């Protein structure tokens, strides 16, 4: 009997030890994992997307807005129809090849695959109406451009990064990506088997912060006008490309900006990288004669010349070191005044002005005008080519810089510096975003202005530019009676250490009305073939746009 009792005791002892081990295994060793699995069954976590901010025109109308779209996915194990049949039905709706869709539908071993991104709500409805099981949709955000490709390079686009998240690239989307993106939120709480939240359980939430809206300075009417006119101009003058920028010279507000060729931000993936950068802020060029405005304004401010100062070396070509400086049309005007030098766009006369200024003083003025420096415009991708170091300029550098050769600028750099002349010597910082709007707050951008030259020097320079517009080589295209201060620029293109003899970049910069400007505009054309001269290409295009702007801004003839 005692033996039996001992046997049973040992048996129960071993059983107890085994049970203790098992309990230890599940509760201590595997305890954390099991608790996690259990938590997953009753706790539901959800990321709350932050809607991307909108980009608005100056009048508050949308330029780029958030828009609901859908990700179409397939769960191959749940497909009940034949993949071939589904692919044939989906192909015309999604505008895709049947073979491309079939490739995903037939992928073995996959339980979930994306079929198409950014499907519109309308197309989603059409696909749902087919009633195929195994197909589903997930909400995702898209960008909608009500004005299509208008201001594409200025706006930039929203693409995907390596993790598949939305990221803004180029232009405003790139520069203000963090501001536009907002902050995702997260909600976590207990729920029952049907996913219904248990209000007595644990609950935590961090709200999503929607992206900030950007109110830009862009005037849609002006923007659409310059895009249409630039496209017409490119065709008429057979140019390879071109840009137009319109700015308020008193504040630096960019009213419109465009370049050709451009791209469609909705279908950015169909274009090469070279289309995305904005030439107005990312491409440098030798400005040629439009640069004379800055050199002459500097000389007037430094009081080394006056408008009636006579050039005593303008009777023929000027020999500088081993080079000979000539005028663009090989015509020479002895006893030219400084007003005449600008009127005739006289290279020899400008070399004279350069000599009067001296290399170091000219350098200081160009630095004040912001040449060789980024303007600080709120767009992604701005570049600037620094000026040659002060103190290293030789007499040839000084002479050529005086008429805009041997220096490189971007269009935005150029328009900013000439805006100082238009704005009584005060140079504005160009900007595109005038206000940022949150859910219950708004922050306005304040214009930044900096004095570069005196008011009197600016007025004298303006008068010279008025004379150049009225009586210079582009006078044939200037509309009678309107007060315009302008200057043409025909620049040779440097290639491999010399200038391309066959092609030029042409430009025209001007503002109107001259004494109280409502706009300043720079037009540049790359390698126009119909004529190599700015007076026959960029200038007529400038005036063609200006005629529309006169009407729009209510600018009337002087008399």
């Amino acid at each position, binding site marked *: 009997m005692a033996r039996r009792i001992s046997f049973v005791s040992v048996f129960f002892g071993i059983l107890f030890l085994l049970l203790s081990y098992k309990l230890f295994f599940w509760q201590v060793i595997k305890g954390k994992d099991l608790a996690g699995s259990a938590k997953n069954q009753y706790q539901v976590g959800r990321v709350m997307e932050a809607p991307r901010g909108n980009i608005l025109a100056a009048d508050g109308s949308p330029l780029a807005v958030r828009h609901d779209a859908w990700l179409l996915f397939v769960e191959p194990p749940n497909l009940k129809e034949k993949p071939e049949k589904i692919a044939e039905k989906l192909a015309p709706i999604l505008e895709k090849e049947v073979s491309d869709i079939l490739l995903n539908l037939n992928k073995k071993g996959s339980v979930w695959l994306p079929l198409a991104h950014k499907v519109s709500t309308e197309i989603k409805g059409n696909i749902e109406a087919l009633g195929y099981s195994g197909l589903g949709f997930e909400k995702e955000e898209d960008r909608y451009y009500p*004005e299509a490709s208008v201001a594409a390079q200025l706006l930039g686009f929203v693409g995907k990064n390596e993790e598949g998240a939305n990221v803004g690239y180029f232009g405003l989307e790139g520069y203000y990506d963090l501001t536009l993106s907002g902050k995702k939120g997260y909600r976590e709480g207990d729920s029952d088997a049907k996913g*219904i939240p248990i209000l007595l359980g644990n609950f935590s939430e961090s709200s999503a912060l929607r992206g900030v809206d950007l109110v830009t300075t862009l005037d849609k009417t002006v923007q659409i006008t310059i895009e249409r006119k630039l496209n017409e101009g490119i065709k008429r003058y057979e140019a390879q490309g071109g840009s137009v920028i319109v700015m308020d010279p008193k504040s630096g507000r960019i009213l419109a900006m465009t370049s050709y060729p451009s791209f469609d931000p909705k279908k950015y993936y169909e274009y090469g990288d070279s289309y995305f950068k904005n030439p107005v802020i990312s491409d440098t060029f030798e400005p040629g004669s439009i640069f004379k405005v800055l050199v002459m304004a500097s000389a007037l401010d430094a009081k080394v010349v006056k408008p009636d100062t006579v050039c005593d070396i303008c009777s023929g070509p000027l020999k500088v070191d081993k080079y000979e400086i000539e005028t663009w049309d090989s015509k020479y005007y002895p006893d030219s005044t400084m007003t005449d030098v600008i009127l005739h766009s006289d290279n020899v006369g400008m070399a004279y002005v350069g000599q009067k200024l001296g290399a170091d003083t000219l350098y200081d003025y160009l630095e004040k005008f912001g040449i060789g420096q980024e303007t600080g415009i709120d767009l992604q991708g701005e570049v600037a080519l620094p000026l040659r170091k002060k103190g290293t300029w030789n007499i040839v550098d000084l002479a050529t810089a005086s008429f805009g050769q041997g220096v490189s600028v971007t269009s935005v750099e150029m328009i900013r510096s000439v805006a100082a002349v238009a704005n009584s010597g005060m140079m504005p910082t160009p900007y595109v975003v005038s206000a940022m709007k949150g859910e219950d707050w708004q922050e306005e951008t304040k214009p930044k202005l900096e004095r570069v030259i005196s008011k009197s020097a600016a007025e004298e320079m303006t008068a010279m530019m008025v004379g150049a517009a009225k009586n210079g080589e582009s006078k044939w295209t200037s509309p009678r009676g309107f007060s315009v201060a302008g200057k043409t620029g025909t620049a040779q293109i440097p290639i491999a250490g010399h200038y391309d003899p066959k092609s030029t970049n042409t430009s025209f910069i001007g503002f109107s009305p001259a004494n109280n400007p409502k706009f300043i505009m720079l037009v540049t054309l790359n390698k126009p073939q119909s004529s190599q001269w700015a007076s026959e290409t960029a200038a007529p295009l400038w005036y063609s746009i200006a005629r529309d702007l006169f009407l729009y801004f209510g600018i009337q003839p002087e008399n």
Partner: protein
Amino acid sequence: MLKKYKELIITSLLIVLVIANVIFTVSVSANGAELTSLEKAQNDLLAKNQELTDKVTNESSLSIISQKADSLGFSKPENIVYTTALEPVANLP
């Protein structure tokens, strides 16, 4: 006798509390379902609002308005004549 009353009161209180607990739990769980349904309604309304906003955005696009203006026969002003304001010759009575 007093002890019997005490037991009765405690038992009744317990029963009332249990019933209250059951009612409260049922009501809160129903609120969870209501919350879900309200959230769904909110999402539906937001989606509808977004749809209408898209429609307004599209219809108010300057490009679309310009096309409509063209089709209605509106055209850009051409051959504009600017006139100067004439000095009145005899504006006194």
